[in-house]
C-alpha cells in the first residue's frame, strides 16, 4: 500500500469512528421513547392523526389525552412542547395528565405537540440531549428537543415561508415552527398538518379554551406573561391580577398582535370559536449571553452573566442569585392554567370546567416537579403511553 493510501485509510478510519460515536447518540436521542403515565382521570387516549389524516404514520403523530368529567361542561385544550426546547411546558402537561381528576367538562392534553421537534437537537448551540427530573422513585428522563421540527421529517425549507392562508412572508425556518404554521391545512407541509389537526380537535370538540404553554428568554419582553387576543383579554387580565394578589407572582398580559400571523394565540381565535391563551415563563437557558448550556442551567436557571445583566436592568423579569428554577416555572404554569379555568367558569357557568388534584404554584415550589410523577415501572402497563 502506498504512503498516500495509508494516510487516506487513517483519515477515513478517524472520521468513520467520530461519525459512529456522534451518530449513535443522535440516533438514540431521536428514537428515545418517553413513558407517560395516564392518571386516574384519563378516560381516553387518541392520536392526532385521528383528526388529521396527513400526520398518520409520520413522526409528527402524537398522543392526545382526554380527561372527561361525569358531568357535562366546557372543554379545555392544553398543548405543550409546541417548542420542544421549552421543557416547563411538557413538565406541566404531565402533571395534569398524571394527576388531574375532572368532575365537570373535558380536558384534552397534547404533551408533545411538535413530536418531530422533540426528536431534534441543536448541537451547534451545545444543547444537552436529555435532562432528568428527580422524583421520589428515581429520576424521570426527558428528551431535550429543539424549537423547530427535524429536517429529517420536513425538508427542504423554502427560501421564505409564505404563511397559509394570509400569505405573510415569514422566516424560512418558521415552516418547521408549530407556532407559526397555524391554522394549518390538511395537505400543506407536515407542521401545517399538525396545527390543522389541533384546529380540527377544537372545531369538532367545540373547545372553549386553548392553552399553549411556552418559555421565553429573560431578555425578551414577551416573557413571564399570558399572551391573549382581544376575545381572551378579559379572562387573561383577571387571571393575571388574581395570581398576583393570591399567589404573589407576576404574570402580566401581552396583547396578541393582529398583524403577525401564524401564532397560536392569534389564529386559533380567528379561525375557531375557542379562546386562546399562550403562557410564557422565563427560561434563562434560552438567553444568548449565558455560560454553557448545561442541564443544570436548564433546571435551575442560575447564570452569572444574566445576574450581572439583571443588575444593569437589562432583563425583563426579576432575577437574583436564586435564578429561575424549574419548580417556579412549572408552578406558575399550573396556577395560571387553573386560574384561567376558574375565571372562564365564573363567566360562563353553563360551560364550566371543574377539576381537582392539580398542584398550584406554592405546592410545586415546595414539593418539586418530580413529586407529581408516577413510576412507569410500578403501574399497570396499559396506562403507560409512549411519546
Amino acid at each position, binding site marked *: 500500500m502506498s504512503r498516500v493510501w495509508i494516510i487516506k485509510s487513517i483519515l477515513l478510519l478517524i472520521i468513520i469512528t467520530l461519525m459512529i460515536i456522534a451518530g449513535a447518540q443522535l440516533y438514540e436521542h*431521536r428514537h428515545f421513547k418517553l413513558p407517560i403515565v395516564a392518571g386516574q382521570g384519563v378516560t381516553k387516549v387518541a392520536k392526532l392523526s385521528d383528526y388529521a389524516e396527513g400526520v398518520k404514520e409520520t413522526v409528527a403523530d402524537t398522543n392526545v389525552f382526554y380527561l372527561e368529567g361525569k358531568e357535562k361542561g366546557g372543554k379545555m385544550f392544553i398543548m405543550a412542547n409546541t417548542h420542544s426546547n421549552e421543557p416547563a411546558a411538557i413538565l406541566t402537561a404531565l402533571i395534569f395528565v398524571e394527576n388531574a381528576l375532572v368532575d365537570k367538562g373535558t380536558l384534552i392534553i397534547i404533551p408533545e405537540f411538535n413530536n418531530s421537534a422533540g426528536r431534534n437537537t441543536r448541537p451547534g448551540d451545545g444543547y444537552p440531549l436529555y435532562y432528568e427530573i428527580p422524583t421520589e422513585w428515581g429520576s424521570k428522563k426527558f428528551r431535550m428537543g429543539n424549537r423547530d421540527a427535524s429536517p429529517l421529517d420536513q425538508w427542504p425549507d423554502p427560501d421564505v415561508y409564505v404563511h397559509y392562508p394570509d400569505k405573510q412572508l415569514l422566516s424560512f425556518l418558521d415552516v418547521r415552527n408549530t407556532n407559526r404554521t397555524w391554522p394549518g391545512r390538511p395537505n400543506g407541509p407536515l407542521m401545517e398538518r399538525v396545527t390543522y389537526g389541533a384546529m380540527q380537535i377544537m372545531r369538532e370538540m367545540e373547545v372553549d379554551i386553548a392553552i399553549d404553554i411556552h418559555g421565553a428568554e429573560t431578555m425578551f419582553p414577551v416573557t413571564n406573561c399570558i399572551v391573549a387576543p382581544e376575545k381572551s383579554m378579559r379572562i387573561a387580565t383577571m387571571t393575571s391580577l388574581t395570581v398576583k394578589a393570591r399567589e404573589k407572582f407576576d404574570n402580566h398580559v401581552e396583547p396578541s398582535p393582529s398583524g403577525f400571523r401564524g401564532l397560536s394565540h392569534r389564529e386559533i381565535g380567528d379561525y375557531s370559536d375557542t379562546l386562546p391563551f399562550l403562557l410564557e415563563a422565563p427560561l434563562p437557558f434560552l438567553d444568548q449571553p449565558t455560560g454553557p448550556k448545561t442541564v443544570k442551567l436548564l433546571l435551575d436557571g442560575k447564570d452569572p452573566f444574566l445576574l450581572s445583566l439583571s443588575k444593569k436592568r437589562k432583563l425583563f423579569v426579576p432575577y437574583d442569585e436564586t435564578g429561575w428554577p424549574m419548580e417556579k416555572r412549572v408552578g406558575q404554569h399550573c396556577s395560571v392554567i387553573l386560574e384561567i379555568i376558574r375565571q372562564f367558569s365564573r363567566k360562563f357557568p353553563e360551560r364550566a370546567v371543574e377539576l381537582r388534584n392539580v398542584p398550584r404554584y406554592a405546592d410545586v415550589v415546595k414539593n418539586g416537579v418530580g413529586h407529581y410523577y408516577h413510576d412507569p415501572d410500578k403501574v399497570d402497563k396499559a396506562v403507560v403511553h409512549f411519546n
Partner: protein
Amino acid sequence: MPLIMILYYIICAYIAGMLVWNFIREKKSVNDMLLYLLVMIPLVLRILRVK
C-alpha cells in the same frame, strides 16, 4: 416522503459521491483529503437519516 424531499436526498447523495471521488483522486494534500471527509459527515448523516 414527498417528491421534493426525495430529490433533495438524491442531490445529497450526488454531492457525497463527488466528495468521495475527489477524496480518491487527491494524491498530495492531506488537508484537502481531510476537508473532503469532514464536508461529507453531514451529508452521510442526512442520507442515513440520523441527523
